[in-house]
């Protein structure tokens, strides 16, 4: 990062190759299709580039990246909401450029996290999928560690309740003659 701030293009390229997959996965969770996620990633990197002087050596790097990516995602959602309110939504065809295994796991994750609110979902993604610490997630989401812990606890409780209720309903349906 320090070499990127010093204007080293090779370091910038290496950083882009290293961090982009994680950021893309985070952005893809709300994107309409793969192309949408690619655009969001590009937008995120433009903002990271414009804000690169705000990173200070010694501070954790991932929360800094995720704080900017999160801002891009929120702005995208707000813009999209405005557009959807005015225009009829066009059918998007997802571009299949990922492996079948990755896609299946992503589907399973999407299905699991679907009942959660946006805030709970992004915290679980950062904590469990991106492997960030509670402190890092708190920094990335501009909140306290206590607030992050509370959101994780509520998310797990909601997931348990939803999944158990779904199993119960399925079991009852199967028990019917």
């Amino acid at each position, binding site marked *: 990062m320090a070499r990127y701030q010093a204007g080293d293009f090779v370091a910038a390229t290496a950083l882009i190759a290293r961090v982009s997959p994680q950021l893309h996965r985070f952005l893809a969770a709300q994107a309409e299709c793969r192309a949408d996620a690619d655009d969001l990633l590009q937008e995120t990197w*433009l903002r990271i580039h414009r804000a690169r002087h*705000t990173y200070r050596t010694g501070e954790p790097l991932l929360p800094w990246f995720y704080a900017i990516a999160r801002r891009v995602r929120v702005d995208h959602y707000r813009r999209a909401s405005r557009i959807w309110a005015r225009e009829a939504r066009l059918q998007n065809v997802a571009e299949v450029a990922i492996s079948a295994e990755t896609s299946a796991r992503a589907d399973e994750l999407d299905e699991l996290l679907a009942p959660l609110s946006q805030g709970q979902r992004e915290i679980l993604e950062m904590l469990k999928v991106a492997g960030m610490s509670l402190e890092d997630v708190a920094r990335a989401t501009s909140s306290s560690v206590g607030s992050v812990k509370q959101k994780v606890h509520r998310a*797990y409780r909601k997931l348990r309740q939803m999944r158990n209720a779904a199993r119960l309903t399925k079991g009852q349906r199967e028990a019917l003659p």
Partner: protein
Amino acid sequence: MTDDEIDKVLADAARAPHELPEPLLARIAESIKPSLQPVHPLPSTFRLASGLILICAVVALAGAALTGFHGVEALAPVARFLIFATLLVLAYLAAEALVDEMIPGSRRRLSAVILVAVASTALLVVFALLFRDYRVDHFVHAGVACLFFGVLFAVPTGLLSWLLLRRGVATQRVSAGIAGGALAGLAGVTLLELHCANFQALHVLLWHTAVVPVSAAGGALVGWLLRRYSLAQA
């Protein structure tokens, strides 16, 4: 479903490869190449916060120099110490919160809304302890004048603070506006304590303290307008 089963799905998702096509990465790298100049990282939070405190002090002292130091001259030494020490501590907390808001991924010591609540409560407690004159002469007339005066001097403090932190990037503009407004409001209260010699308890409790939440609300409005503007531009 147990927590372990949930963890397993999340862990599987974390292990799944998420590779990106080379042309996309190359396109991103090429898009930043033309403007890849060396940049100086921002100074430490302590230095930036100290700069903000200095701005508050200069604006408050300049305002009092223009209008007179009637308030501080009439205060007892203990009251002077208690009021200005409290204002200094609160201004430092507000300055730190503002710097944190302007740097992505910073540790949030105090959220902007809690900052306003803490600052207002602390001022109310200190003023309630020090001022015991419960008369209400010219309550509204004198009070509105003080509120206006305090907020008026909060505006240049806010502008100068923005100038100092112009290289920062606010990821939450409304929160940054609240923190900036609270800091500017504290400069306004400092000016009132230096200038205003009306020591009636209700006057100080209501109209002097109100400068902080009113300035914070103004900051929130500016942040909200900036957010709307940037979304419209995009």
